[in-house]
């Protein structure tokens, strides 16, 4: 693989950029692979990369229905953080954030991680108490997080609505300074380039139409490009997990919903942090390109439509202007939707299944992007060893029958 650098850029400039190598190969689908991964998004590509890199398994195919990185990887608001309440979650996401911190260099692809800090706003006395509980839980686990006073927030986020007239006045909040945003496409492309270079076959426009199972074991996969033999099959198809798992006869406790995000026109830098507010429900940051990136809650009915509804757009932008009154005269440039898989406890499922050789990574809900490196690494491990990676043992499929839910919302006193 030709290394990217300022030097290579100069060198190619002299050649009119006519000699750049392909970022990844486009090979023919082979009839047999040691491991087949369904889903060419961040998770699928990362899984393939770590299978080859860490476990030396490079006879791997990644099957992508459309274009790689075209699912939620290319549709999310690119936030990375590890400020979770429960140790199981924090351990996992902290591992992921650490990977992100070095990912650009590891993949030799600039993913533009900018650790501008994630601020959660508390808009009532009660919420501030919950946030203290939350921030302290993170500290106790040795991960950075700081409680912020109303005054500190006012100083850090000068454009925030601090007026007494605010419906939910800011009482304080907490920040994870290492949290931040990065370039989502770059993560998919970087993993694809590195995985392809290690021998992984990335097959785009290849839809899985069936999964061959006999005697409770995976035998192969039927695709729009033909049948492939394999006895190890990984699934990372955010949005369509229940549909694909059903092909193997596996039922999942997952509901698919539409989550939308939107961006404003690009403006010069004005927002220096990611700001989230559970009460005034939205989260806001500014991309390196200058667009204000805004997200909110998912539509509340099951959906496979990759488009947001008007009432959620209105709700999210309403909240955005309530938080940042200066956004009012700016213009919304683009709005889109992605399909998220939500588990009953809104936590992921990275697990073996009742079908031997069938491994799943799903339930990432609205937080899959930040989990890509750790998600790929742990699924790769689970596949390679046919045993869960320690980080994902708590996130097994059988936790529900034991009532062992990992419900981050629960820590906030939310019963659901």
């Amino acid at each position, binding site marked *: 693989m030709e290394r990217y650098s300022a030097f290579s850029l100069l060198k190619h400039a002299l050649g009119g950029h006519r000699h750049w190598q392909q970022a990844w190969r486009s090979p023919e689908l082979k009839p047999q692979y040691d491991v087949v991964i369904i889903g060419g998004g961040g998770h699928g590509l990362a899984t393939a990369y770590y299978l080859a890199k860490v476990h030396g398994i490079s006879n791997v195919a990644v099957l992508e229905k459309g274009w790689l990185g075209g699912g939620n990887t290319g549709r999310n608001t690119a936030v990375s953080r590890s400020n979770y309440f429960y140790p199981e979650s924090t351990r996992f996401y902290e591992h992921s954030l650490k990977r992100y911190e070095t990912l650009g260099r590891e993949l030799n692809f600039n993913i533009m991680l900018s650790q501008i800090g994630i601020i959660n706003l508390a808009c009532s006395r009660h919420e501030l108490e919950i946030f203290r509980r939350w921030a302290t839980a993170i500290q106790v686990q040795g991960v950075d997080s700081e409680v912020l006073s109303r005054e500190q927030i006012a100083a850090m986020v000068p454009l925030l609505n601090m007026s007494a007239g605010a419906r939910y006045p800011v009482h304080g909040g907490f920040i994870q300074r290492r949290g931040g945003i990065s370039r989502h496409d770059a993560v998919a492309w970087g993993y694809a380039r590195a995985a392809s270079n290690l021998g992984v076959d990335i097959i785009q426009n290849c839809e899985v139409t069936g999964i061959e199972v006999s005697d409770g074991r995976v035998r192969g996969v039927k695709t729009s490009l033909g049948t492939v033999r394999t006895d190890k099959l990984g699934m990372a198809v955010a949005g369509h997990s229940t549909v694909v798992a059903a092909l193997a006869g596996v039922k999942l406790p997952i509901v698919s919903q539409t989550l939308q995000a939107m961006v404003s026109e*690009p403006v010069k830098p004005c927002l220096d942090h990611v700001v989230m507010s559970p009460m005034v429900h939205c989260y806001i940051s500014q991309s390196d390109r200058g667009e204000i990136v805004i997200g909110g809650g998912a539509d509340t009915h099951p959906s496979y439509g990759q488009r947001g509804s008007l009432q959620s757009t209105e709700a999210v932008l309403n909240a955005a202007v309530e938080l940042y009154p200066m956004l009012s005269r700016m213009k919304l440039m683009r709005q889109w939707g992605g399909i998220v898989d939500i588990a009953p406890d809104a936590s992921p499922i990275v697990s073996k299944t009742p079908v031997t050789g069938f491994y799943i990574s799903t339930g990432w809900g609205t937080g899959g992007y930040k989990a890509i490196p750790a998600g790929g690494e742990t699924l790769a491990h689970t596949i390679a060893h046919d045993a869960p990676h320690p980080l994902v043992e708590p996130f097994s499929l059988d936790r529900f029958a034991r009532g062992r839910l990992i419900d981050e919302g629960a820590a906030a006193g939310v019963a659901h």
Partner: protein
Amino acid sequence: MKRGPQRLPHARVDTGQPLTFRFEGETYRGYSGDTLASALLANGVSIVGRSFKLHRPRGVFAAGREDANALVQLEHGAWSEPNARATLTPLYEGLVAKGQNAWPSPAWDLLAALGLLKKVLPAGFYYKTFIWPNWKYWEGLVRRLAGLGEAPTAADPQYYLKQTLHAEVVVVGAGRSGLEAALAAAQDPDCRVLLLDEQEEPGGSLLASPDPADRAWLASRLERIARCPNLTLMPRTSVNAYHDHNLLAALQRIGTALGPQADPVAPREISWRIFAGRVVLATGALERPLVFPHNDRPGIMLAGAVREYSHRYGLTLGERIVFFCNNDSAWHTALELAEHGLRVAVIVDVRPRVAPELLRRATVAGIVDRLGYSVVHTRGRRGLRQLVIRRLTEGGDGLQGPRETLDCDLLAMSGGWSPTLHLYSQSGGQLKWREEDSCFVPGTASQAVTAVGRANGDFPQPLHTQAYWLTSGVSADCQWVDFQYDVTAADIQLAARENYVSVEHVKRYTTNGMAIDQGKTSNVNGLGILALATGRSIPEVGTTRFRPPWHPATIGAWAGIELGTLYQPFQRLPAHVCQVALGAQMADMGGWQRPEYYPRAGESEAQAIAREVLAVRNAVGLLDYSPLGKLEVHGPDAREFLNRVYVNNLTNLKPGAARYGLMLNERGIVVDDGVVVCLAEDHFLLHTTSGGASAVHRALEEWLQCEWLALRVLVTDVTTQWATLMLSGPRARAVLAQLPGDIDPSRDAFAHMQFRSGSLCGVPVRILRASFTGEVSFEISVPAACGQSLWEALMTAGAPQDITPFGIEALMVLRTEKGYLHVGSDTDGNTMPQDLGWSHAIGKKPGDFIGRRSLTLEVGQDPQRLQFTGIALLDETSTTVSGAHVLAGDGGGSAGYVTSVCFSPTLGRTVALGIVAGARARLGETVAVYYEGKTQPARLVTPCQLDPEGARLQADGAVPVTGASRTATPQLGALPPVLTARSPVAGDSGIARSAFRLREEAGLELIRLQVFHRSEGQVQALATHLNTALPGPGIAHRQGSRRWLWCAPGDWLVAVSAGAGATELAALRADTGELLALATEVTDSRVTLRLGGARVRDVLARGTTLDLHPRQFGNQQCAVTRFAGVPVLLLAEADEVLLIACRSLAAYLLEWFGAASRDC
């Protein structure tokens, strides 16, 4: 290029109305009817701004929404708007604008030096570098260079409205086809037709036609429209999004001036939600630029734009105009310009052959033609000076022959036309590629939508377009595709070379089409170049999906007026006026505005709370407790139902008795608690946590309607029907005894956990003796309207006893001292009843209850579950906070956390509660409490820190816990013999605007009639009993003096005239026989607003999505609907509308109407 303000004769600008404006500090003159773009052009301003990446000079390039070049920072300060389009900004007197992304100015921009680096900044260069040592060292610089305009830094001085429209047919675009389609649809008088157009005036491309016949045609159609009652033309309205179920989101510009001179009364824009039966898209087509070397120079424009600036704005943009095209439309434009005296020198056409007729006419017009040629270079520093052209090889894929230089000061180009199908694509419609016109046209629709005219690919004259995606045979480096983001043909070829061959990859890798115009002029050219680079056809390449909005839309317009106090509905306490008068510190709690504490002069928050706590402990306190949830359950199966709902066994709860109950969800998680009162064998009163009533009510209804359909039970939320005041403290009895009533509050007559109903000061009262403070407490409920009067009476009666109003904060201290659980604070989303010490009770409970089975899952058996406990800091002088954690013994992380903390003025130390791993088995153990780096030792203790044996609940009279200072006894003031009912909007005169009026309707009294367990059978029985037809939804049914308003199956509001309420209630009770139905007086718990004025339905349409057209919602029609986020009942009365809502929402609704009717 010489310019003057003079305009061609047929221009549509009013030269009688000159306007002055400022751009980049210079003062210029334009005319009414100009856009900022046409005015800048008229004044010879060729460079307006700079491009995003390389800071290349950018001038006006198009005339409409497709122009992504002429972006300005409009106005300044709070009025400032970044990235405003000069082509879409109608000129107004005093307009101020400056160019963007340039320093010091667009004309002389030092950052243009970046152009020198172009070679090393190809597509995606940033993915390949800035990796070492770390991106963060480079980011600051890159970030500062990115972005275009400057974001405002202050709140928007203007406001926006959101409004709903319903129409059978919606036509988008008022050009020729749109006008025809709309008029045709309007033939049917019952068909509501909306015609939306985004330009300053209707007419579409007709506005750019110099042909008198076209203008006459337009005038006649507009006349006919004006005469058409069922056809509404909405100009200045762009449809931005096409959603499911034929819902369109449109934005209408109201005012023109956008600076400080803007109209302060009118909204800046109105955001329309339009529910359409059928949609007709007459959105026209967008002209494409041609891709050739240096095609981005100011002075190079779209041919259609040149046409529009010449004829609509009357500008002479060039003395020597050259056309460059691949289709016939440009020839027609050129000939038209020539006819009107503009100097068209040459037409360069990539096609080797064109229709002889065109050639002939061109020759006659003195236009030289160059067929089978391409422009290969352009020259000119500040504007266009020269072109270099060269002959194309036969296949058009190369160049041959000598270079020829043409002098010219304006190049009008046309690369073909793309039907505007953004909305069609958003609607889910498929697009198909039409080779002969090289453009996408509508394929299969997935909603009720059709495209007509150019949008459907039906061009007035055949285009004979020859695909020409870029100029081969010369470097692709300076052949620009996306003018704003500086994307070249070479960038797209590079992406393909690097295997970014999916159209989405190319878009994201090169940023082609991601600029503010979202690819309106660059997408199709990009596709063509990609197709060539990858040897695929355009259909094989496919297209990116069109996303809303069609055009960047003001964010504030999506927010509307729901900001500040109106961001969410708020509810007010019955005695709100008194709280404010007492100077209460109010806060939002579950949507209610409630007093936190009542600071006195010079008192800190802590001092105020401590004073209030001691007052309750030593004397008596008064709390407005009205948000306390109150549900009534009626019916023969009520007890059975409650036994399934509560963890407790309620089988032996006797009438008049009360019991604390715990409620789980089906997962076994504690979701609510409260006191259950048995009023009668088949009648119970449930108390829920404050603000929890509606959630609990919803859950209970779901069980009854979806699971337990056989149970004969009726659940009613009466929370806001009653004002509930909590009188608490050793002297509570003494105070209550002062008020005339038939309930004996004495200890022996009224024991703890008992309930009484009767009358107090002449009004019905319900009194519960329960305690959340540990003191003798009476929770006194009277009809909501009498709440304020009761507060005043109790304050008066309590004066001799030093009665003190106390807030939620003091209540929390009192209950924390007592270790009383507060669900939501001391429980989290995992708490099960066994964590609260309920295992024994559960063991004794026979039968099933919601969530019981879940308790037996593995997780429920875990000895390390977090359990409710008291936490006593060993150092009594220290304190901690709610949110501090209890550390696991092995130092391995958290073992639970502190959930409630307060300084107890009674005990003189901090008192804390929490949930801690296995706490119930670890009482007395020492644990470490951690917060913000500080660890301190504490002991796990029983939650109750004060009066564990509960002696104070039996107390009679004062039992001071500390030397309470007793001030001199004031004299008992005069008590009202009868409590007076007060309106929730007392003292508010309503709203009286020229076109909208609002006042409280006092002429109605309301009775709610509900049949027990709402079965059809019961409704029938009732109908027979009353021998009248009971009305269903929709129509207010008059029956004698009564007006029946349907609210839900078996649930009506019966409206009667003022004063008749009591007798009608008695009559109804007699008529219905109390076995069949429940009749209650609810006038007091509702507020009725009478709305009128010419624009009443407009204002209503800003609060509800209901179709309010008189045909759908005429006289005497009623509907229960969502209004401004709250449930209301609307009743049309001739040209007025009555709105009936919960009284606690009255203040919110008044404020909302005030804001929503500002422009009326």
